[in-house]
């Protein structure tokens, strides 16, 4: 892709938004007039309303890939692409509402979903799920930063390594100061920007080119057979991978549990339903107006992944490029901040307080949280560059991620909602699900292509087989063992086991340190 803007525009965007959000966070802190506590930092006071929580869920789930890849599917598969991208990735948010409200019911004072897992299951399950959760957060954060750096580099010519260091810096500073609440407020402004910019693009495409010319263009394409119908087999295959693969990136990602934990009781489930319905409109609109329209207007690109910025520039010139870059950067910032607060909460709650310093006071927890936020924010920049050096493509990681992280989806969900879920079923279900998925993925790539390489592994069929196998194996083991073992867990015992960080003093809270072992034979 040719650079459309100068590198100074890239630096200016980083400076304006990074500085702007930091200033807003400091102002908010001063206006509040109260000293920040560890509990406030990690849960935003558990007092977030449905509106702010929905906006935050939308911001966290709007990755740079949502804007770039959804347009690519519209360009390649026609009208089925935007629909499958939107529907295939919004149902996880809708279904997450069910587990979110169950967490509120069963562990109202928990800080992370792993804290619940530690009480519900045993130590080895806690460690395994901790591994899945950290892997999810680290991969997503690296993808987000790298995606932003690649976009800045290709649109402005900004040095990719400098961009990979500066991007995390923009959201790390305000997150370090304001914690989860700052992330919520920034998410709101980012969501507003994304909706407004998308509206401008949609209106511009509609008034400049009209619907008829796009339709006629699509009808005259050699691939018109699948461009103007939902009965497109490649579109359907992509939709299935999207549906299965995205469960892991929501259900095993602390960022989404955190939004339930921070919400008021009355807001938790509604926020996910409203957020899911509203989020649907983002990939649906961006891919229809920047992806499908580009195909209909006959715009040529080297790679379908770059169609969105090219179309943005085609519609509104340099202004379009700046608006697209701003929208992309907003998506990067809000997802990055959400992931960073998630990593911080996991490390502080499930590693630091459980294994390193169970006696830590609220003040100590707060200072540790801030140090972890800063350290991880900067480390993620380095990790993103490492991924870039290894030559791993973003599209490949996006599609393959489900195979590595989705093994934990069924065990975690069952742990929260089913009395009969067992320690053994959850552990082996998650572990063997992942191993089985990787084996099936590689085997099918070999059988279909005769060899295993990145291209063979990236094919639609191996990805679909790998992603489905994870769910089939983990589901059979987790449910099967639960039914055979005939054990039941008493959820009522959990309610008092989670205490506020602000209640931490010199003495550790025994219940928080201990692991759950209350499974009884019926």
């Amino acid at each position, binding site marked *: 892709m040719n650079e459309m803007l100068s590198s100074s525009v890239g630096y200016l965007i980083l400076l304006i938004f990074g500085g702007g959000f930091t200033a807003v966070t400091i102002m908010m802190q001063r206006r509040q007039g109260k000293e920040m506590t560890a509990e406030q930092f990690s849960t935003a006071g558990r007092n977030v*309303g*449905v*509106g*702010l929580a*929905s*906006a935050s869920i*939308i911001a966290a789930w709007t990755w740079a890939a949502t804007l770039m890849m959804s347009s690519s599917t519209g360009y390649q598969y026609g*009208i089925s692409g935007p*629909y*499958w991208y939107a*529907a*295939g990735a*919004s*149902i996880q948010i*809708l*279904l997450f*509402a*069910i587990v979110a*409200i169950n967490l*509120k*019911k069963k562990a109202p004072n928990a800080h992370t979903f792993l804290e619940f897992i530690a009480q519900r299951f045993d130590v080895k399950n806690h460690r395994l799920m901790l591994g899945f959760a950290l892997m999810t957060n680290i991969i997503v954060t690296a993808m987000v930063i790298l995606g932003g750096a690649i976009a800045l580099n290709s649109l402005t010519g900004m040095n990719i390594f400098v961009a990979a260091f500066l991007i995390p810096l923009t959201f790390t500073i305000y997150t370090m100061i304001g914690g989860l609440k700052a992330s919520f407020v920034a998410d*709101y402004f980012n*969501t*507003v920007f994304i*909706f*407004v910019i*998308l*509206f401008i693009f*949609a*209106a511009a495409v509609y008034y400049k080119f009209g*619907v*008829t010319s*796009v*339709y006629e263009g699509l009808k005259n394409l050699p691939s018109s057979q699948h461009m*103007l*119908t*939902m*009965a497109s087999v490649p579109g*359907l295959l992509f*939709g299935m991978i999207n*549906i299965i693969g995205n469960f892991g990136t929501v259900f095993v990602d602390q960022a989404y549990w955190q939004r339930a934990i921070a919400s008021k*009781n*009355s807001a*938790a*489930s*509604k926020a*996910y*339903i*409203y957020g*899911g*319905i*509203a*989020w*649907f*409109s*983002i990939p*649906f*609109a961006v891919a*229809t*107006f920047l992806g499908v329209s580009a195909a209909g207007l006959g715009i040529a690109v080297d790679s379908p992944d770059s169609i969105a910025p090219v179309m943005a520039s085609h519609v509104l010139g340099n202004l379009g490029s700046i608006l697209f870059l701003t929208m992309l950067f907003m998506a990067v910032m809000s997802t990055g901040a959400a992931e960073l607060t998630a990593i911080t909460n996991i490390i502080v709650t499930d590693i630091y307080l459980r294994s390193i310093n169970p006696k830590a006071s609220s003040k100590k927890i707060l200072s540790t949280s801030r140090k972890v936020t800063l350290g991880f924010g900067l480390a993620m920049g380095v990790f993103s560059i490492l991924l870039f050096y290894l030559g791993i493509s973003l599209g490949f990681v996006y599609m393959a991620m489900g195979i590595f992280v989705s093994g934990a989806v069924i065990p975690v969900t069952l742990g929260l909602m089913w009395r009969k879920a067992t320690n053994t079923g959850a552990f082996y279900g998650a572990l063997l699900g992942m191993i089985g998925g990787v084996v099936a993925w590689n085997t099918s790539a070999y059988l279909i292509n005769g060899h295993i390489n990145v291209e063979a592994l990236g094919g639609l069929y191996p990805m679909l087989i790998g992603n489905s196998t994870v769910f089939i194996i983990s589901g059979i083991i987790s449910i099967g063992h639960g039914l055979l073992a005939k054990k039941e867990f008493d959820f009522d015992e959990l309610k008092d086991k989670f205490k506020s960080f602000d209640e931490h003093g010199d003495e550790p809270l025994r219940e928080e340190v201990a692991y759950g072992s209350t499974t009884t034979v019926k």
Partner: protein
Amino acid sequence: MDPQQQLNKDAKLCTRWALGLTFLFVLLFPGVMFLTGYQYTLSFFKGWTYLAFGWLIIAGICIIVGPVVEFVREKKDSE
């Protein structure tokens, strides 16, 4: 209402909505469209485009206005 009762009521309601919308989005609508192999006419394509545009505007307004209304209400309540 007792907070636990309220949570139970919310859980029932959100389960219905989540499962209903999931069924509509990934099975019912695409299933019918796939099985019939319907090719979009110009008027259907126009309707589809307006749907994308309309959904974006309504969702955008709700998401932008919602938190502002909440903020104002909370401020009033605290005063």
